[in-house]
Every structure is written in structure tokens, then in C-alpha cells.
């Protein structure tokens, strides 16, 4: 029971946007889709939704090609939000829900329920353009889920939300998760992925870089981070000579370094004492997804790489 993407390739004109991408989303999980701008996240999502067709490879839901799946099983929140600005909220939502196969009465029931949950019932008869930005986002989210789809594909759902609305959305995510929906969402806010997702994939330039459960990815990464501060020797250049240690950041209040998984951190403390340092801070932490992301993607992803210009 899963959404399986296997060896998918997609090109736009001369640009090879997705290169042999494979991934697996277990049913009922929240799946984080991470990557820099132009990495191919939106293109992959559109292929999952059968808006674009892959050049080669297959995308299946529970063993069936996604092209054969009824449309109403899918909910899509596009990255660029948009609704008919002149339409009233209820008219618009009912139109979309019925277009997705819901009967009129079922659509109205679902709408009333969700408007209440999002506390925007008062806006039911307003035109979309009259709503505040935050309420427009909520309505846009409603448009995605009103027809009760099995799989939700959301492109950057948290972008442009203030903390309060981001929290409302997070709650809705967890609610849908409890209802057994499969949620795939792309983001570059890695804290959110870490907080919500069971599994993630990081893609770069159309290729999968790392995938698996969040815990597994962190372990696979095989490194811990150590932070050290010496009161009398803020530079501590001797650290560079230690085997198995790599200094990554030098901040005002500490030096951050990555250490191999099998490296005994005591060595750093001993070396510091040998150099006559006065230790005021020494800590070991797991790497955050941000660190992994920057390490895997940051080096190769240039902001103005041609693939970022593509209609994807």
C-alpha cells in the first residue's frame, strides 16, 4: 500500500529536469519532499498527479498506474495559490468539490464542517478577493481537501503563512494524518519536515540524494556535531590537525565541528586540555536536517542554475 515512483525521467526541451528518480511513500504517512528551488519538486508532484506525464518510468498507487486512478482520490495544493477572485467562498468551494465528483449535498456538508473547524464560517458568503491573506490561504487549503481525497499533494503549503496560521495548518495536517490520509508535501522549511514527517526525500537537480525515515537519514548521515568554546583560545587552530574532525562554523560564542560516528569525542577534550585551553562549553548534538540538506545540496545547487528557470 504505497505510492511508488520508479526510475522516472522528464525533460523540457533540452533540459533534463528529473533524472531516474525513485521513491516510495507509505500509505497513511506524512512524507516530506525536500530540495532547493528548481530541484524538480513541482515537476515530480505534477507527474504524480498526472498533470504532466513522465518521459520514462512509472508512478503507481497501490500497484495501479496513477493515470487510472479516479481524480477525486487526489488533492492538490499548488505552489502558486489562486482562486477565482470574484467568486463567493461557498460557490467556489462547491464548484471545485463537485468538479471533483462530490454530490451537492455532500459538498455542502463538508464545507460547513471545515469552515467551522477553520473558524471562517463568517466568510462563507464573501468574495474570495475580500478575504484577508491568511483566510485566502485557509480557503485554498479547503479547496484541496474538501472532496476528501486519499492522497494529498501539497506544494510548499507553509510558505507565506504567519506562525498562527502555520499552526492551524499543522493541526489540520495531523488531523488528516489521523484520518489515514497520505500527505506528500514539499518544503524548504526543514524544521517543519523534521516535526511532521515520518519519511523524507531530498532531491537535487532532479536526482534523489537521500531518502528514508527522518531518524534513518540522520543516522545514515553518520556524523555528530560537537560545539566547543575555549575562553582563552577562541580560534583553537589546533582543531584542524585532529583526524576525524572537521570544523564547519566559527561563531562568536563557539566553534562547530563534525565528527565521525566512531570518533571518540573525549579526544577533543583531551587535546583542548593539552593545549592549555579553559573549556567553557562543550556539547554533542545530532545533525539537523538543515545541516544534512546544506551539506548534500548546498555545495552543488547554485541559485541561478538553468534548471531553476524551468516551467516546473
Amino acid at each position: 500500500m504505497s505510492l511508488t515512483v520508479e526510475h522516472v525521467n522528464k525533460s523540457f526541451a533540452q533540459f533534463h529536469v528529473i533524472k531516474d528518480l525513485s521513491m516510495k511513500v507509505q500509505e497513511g504517512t506524512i512524507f516530506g519532499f525536500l530540495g532547493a528551488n528548481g530541484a524538480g519538486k513541482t515537476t515530480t508532484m505534477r507527474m504524480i498527479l498526472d498533470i504532466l506525464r513522465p518521459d520514462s518510468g512509472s508512478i503507481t498507487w497501490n500497484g495501479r498506474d496513477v493515470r487510472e486512478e479516479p481524480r477525486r482520490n487526489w488533492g492538490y495544493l499548488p505552489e502558486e495559490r489562486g482562486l477565482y477572485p470574484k467568486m463567493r467562498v461557498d460557490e467556489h468551494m462547491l464548484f471545485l468539490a463537485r468538479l471533483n465528483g462530490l454530490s451537492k449535498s455532500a459538498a455542502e456538508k463538508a464545507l460547513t464542517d471545515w469552515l467551522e473547524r477553520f473558524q471562517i464560517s463568517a466568510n462563507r458568503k464573501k468574495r474570495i478577493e475580500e478575504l484577508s491573506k491568511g483566510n485566502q490561504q485557509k480557503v485554498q487549503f479547503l479547496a484541496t481537501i474538501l472532496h476528501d481525497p486519499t492522497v494529498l499533494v501539497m506544494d510548499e503549503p507553509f510558505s507565506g503563512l504567519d506562525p498562527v496560521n502555520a499552526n492551524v495548518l499543522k493541526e489540520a495536517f495531523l488531523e488528516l494524518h489521523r484520518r489515514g490520509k497520505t500527505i506528500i508535501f514539499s518544503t524548504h522549511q526543514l524544521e517543519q519536515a523534521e516535526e511532521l514527517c515520518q519519511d523524507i526525500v531530498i532531491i537535487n537537480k532532479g536526482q534523489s540524494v537521500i531518502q528514508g525515515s527522518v531518524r534513518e537519514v540522520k543516522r545514515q548521515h553518520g556524523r555528530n556535531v560537537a560545539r566547543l568554546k575555549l575562553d582563552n583560545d577562541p580560534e583553537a587552530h589546533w582543531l584542524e590537525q585532529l583526524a576525524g574532525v572537521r570544523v564547519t562554523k566559527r561563531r562568536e560564542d563557539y566553534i562547530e565541528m563534525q565528527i565521525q560516528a566512531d570518533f571518540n569525542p573525549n579526544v577533543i577534550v583531551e587535546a583542548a586540555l593539552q593545549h592549555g585551553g579553559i573549556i567553557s562549553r562543550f556539547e554533542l548534538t545530532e545533525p539537523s536536517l538543515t545541516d544534512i540538506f546544506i551539506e548534500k545540496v548546498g555545495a552543488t545547487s547554485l541559485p541561478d542554475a538553468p534548471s531553476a528557470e524551468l516551467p516546473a
Partner: protein
Amino acid sequence: MSKKTVTQPEAARDLSEQGQTPAAVSAGGAAAQQNGRNILLIIGREYKNHITQRSFLISTILILILVAIGACVPTIVQFFSVRTSSPTRIAVINNAGAIAGLSQAALDSYIRSALNGTDTTSHAPYAITSQTQASPESLQTQVKNGRLDILLALTRSPQGNLQFTYYTHADPSNDGNLSTIQTLAQQLNFLDSARRLGLTPSQTSSLVAPPAFSVVGTQQNQNARSGSQIVAGYVLGYLGNILIYMAVTLYGMSVAMGVAEEKGSRVMEILVNAATPFQLLAGKIIGIGAAGLTQMACIVLVGIGAILLQTPLQVALLGASNTGFLAIFTGLSIQFLLLLLLYFILGFLLYSTLFAALGALVKRQDEVRSAVQIPIILLVGGYVVSIIGITAPDATWMKVLSYFPFWTPMIVLTRIGVGTVAWWEVALTTGLMIVAVVVCTFISARIYRLGVLMYGQRPGLGQLLKLTRAN
């Protein structure tokens, strides 16, 4: 959390209700059902959205007012011209004695009927006074200071020939009355000369009687048409052309703008997940077309109503009825009108598929106008051809060009209006147009599918062709 426990079973039930329908019918049947349902939903949205737009309502009301006023203009002009123009005052002094043997009273009535026809009311164009043996000087003064418009003095030369002197206040080079009076003078002179030559009145009348002159049309159908039908044909030809031109530019542009708007506001991204490009294309075109037909129907109904009102209005204002307008309507047959409707709809469908595809290719709404220039030029071409061809409806080049689907509606309507079209030509051109509509819809749906999500550069023609073949 209590809310959640309520909604979950509901959601589950909704799902099972929905699940039954596709299970009961075959997969193809369910797809077709959903297809029709979606198109109807989109048509409904487009129609409602279009006719409730403030700009649409305002423009419809303005057009209706203009049409109503326009229909009344001829009556109003007639009304004011009758009210404001007083008859031309003319005085005739006869110093020539008996003319053509007529008594003074007979001469007066001859002049009156020659100038005013049968109109004996006070609205008649000329008010005539006649005098004999009077001195012209006092009357000349009256002409000079404008109390008289024309003074006509009749005298005889020493040889006995009639002589006319025309005094006028108006500029002789721009005097509309001069030719009328000259004609009268010639007639009087002719009658008088005939009398002096000793001809009897019957000889005279045989001299001026018009010769037998009959007109035979050799075209078969030409004979079957009454004058009012020919007038109606011209009106239909022009009207059909103008209607189609208006409908395609107005509503075709709405289609292109609507597609570009959906693309620009990104609502398209959700729509393409819920409905197929074909459903979106068909729904939009039919929805806007229906809104357009509604507007056209309002205009035509108000126009006909206003024109029908003219007869009672004219009777009320002028005391006389003028059936000029009604003649056009009695000349229109139901067949004409049905064909007008048929070509109107086919023409709109054909062009609007192109407009939709082009609307899908632009990035922003303001680029639509330049993007739709090619179909507009095509349309103007058809319009110009049929306006030129209205004088030669049965020419071979008109016949040939009427098979070009993009020009068929305008040219065939012109030909039906003023010429002859065989039934099989109507059937064949209609068939060709339907084929063209299907082909264009097919191509447009593909361009649309690819264009609506393309926000990069506008693709070139070659790239477009490649896109329509691929996928």
C-alpha cells in the same frame, strides 16, 4: 475533538455513496457521465460568472438603450422635419393669358398637382398662390425680404412662346426647388406648344404617353423574389456579417481573456487536477457562448420590439403610417433566421477554440490582445470578402471561398441573403465547418493542456507543432 468524531463517519459515508455509482455502471460509462457532469458544472460557472459581471450588465443595458433609440431615430427625424419645415411659399403671376387652352382655375390645379402630388394637407411641400395681371414689383419685394420664397412670372414673347422668370431668395446654385420648377415649366411649355401647333388633347397625350417597356429576369429564382425579399436579403447579409463579427470579437475575446485569467490567477493549477483540458475548454466556450447568445437574444428582441413600435408611434406622431420597416420583416423567412443562428453558432465555436488556445499561451492577461491578432485578421478577411461579394453573390470566387470554414459563416450568409445557394451547398459547408470545429477543438485542447501550465517564454510555431504531436 468531539467535532472530529462526528465528521469521520460522515466522510466515510460520503465516500461509500460516491463509490457506488462508478461500481454500478461500467468504467467507460462512469467516465462519460463524469465528463458530461464536469462540462455542465463548468458551463454553469462560466455562464453565471459572465452574466453577473458588472461590465457585462452595464454594456448590455447601454447597447439595449442604443438599439431602442436607434430604431426610433428615423421616426424622430421624420417627426421633426415635418414639424420644423414650413411649406415653400410660391407665388405664380400669369401675364401670358390662357396657357394650353386651360382656364385659370384648371391651370392652378395643374400646377398644384404637379408640385404637391396628391397631398392637399397643410403639410404639403408647396403653398401656392396665383395672380393674374398683377405687377411683379410688390411681389419681388416680398421675395427680397423673405416673406415669399419663390416668385414665378409667366409671360409671352412677341412670337407667342411662353417665358418663365424665376425669382428666388435662395442661392440659385444650391436651390433644391429650381429643378422642380424647371420641370413644371417644361411641361407647361410642351402643352402650350402642342396646343399652338393645333394638336388635339388626345394627340398630345399620345405624344407624352410612356412606351411599353417590360423587364425579364433570366435567373430562375430571381423572379420568385419580391422587392421586400431582396431588401431583406441585403439586410440579412449585412446583419449576419456584423453579428458574427461582433460575436466572435466580443465573446471570443472573453474566452481568451478568461483562459488567460485562469492561468494568471493560477486557479488553473487546481482545475487541471479536477477536470480534463477538454472539459475545461468545452465548458468555457459553451458557457461564454451561451452568455453571448443571451445578450444577442436580448438585443435582437429589443430591436424587433422597438421597430414594431414604430408603426403605432408614427401613427401617433405623424398621423400616417409608414410600412418601410415591416416590409423587411415580412420578407425574412424562418429558414433565413435558422441558418443565421446555425452559422452564428458554428462560427463562434470555430473561432473561440483558437482564441482559447492562444489565451492559454500568453503569460499575462494584457498580452491577450496581441496574441489573438491572427484569428482577428482571418475574421476581418472574411468580413471584407463578403461585403465586397454582396454585389456579386453568385460569382464563382464567392462560391469557392465559401468552402473555407473560417469564412463560411459570413460568405454563405451573404450568398443566402442576396443570391442563390443550393441546399447541398449549405449541407456541405456546414459539414466542413463541423469537421473544422472538431479538428480545431482537438488541436486547441492539446495546446491548452500544455500551455496552461507553461509560464516561461511563449513558444514558437515549430515548438507548438511539436507539442501538439507529442504527449
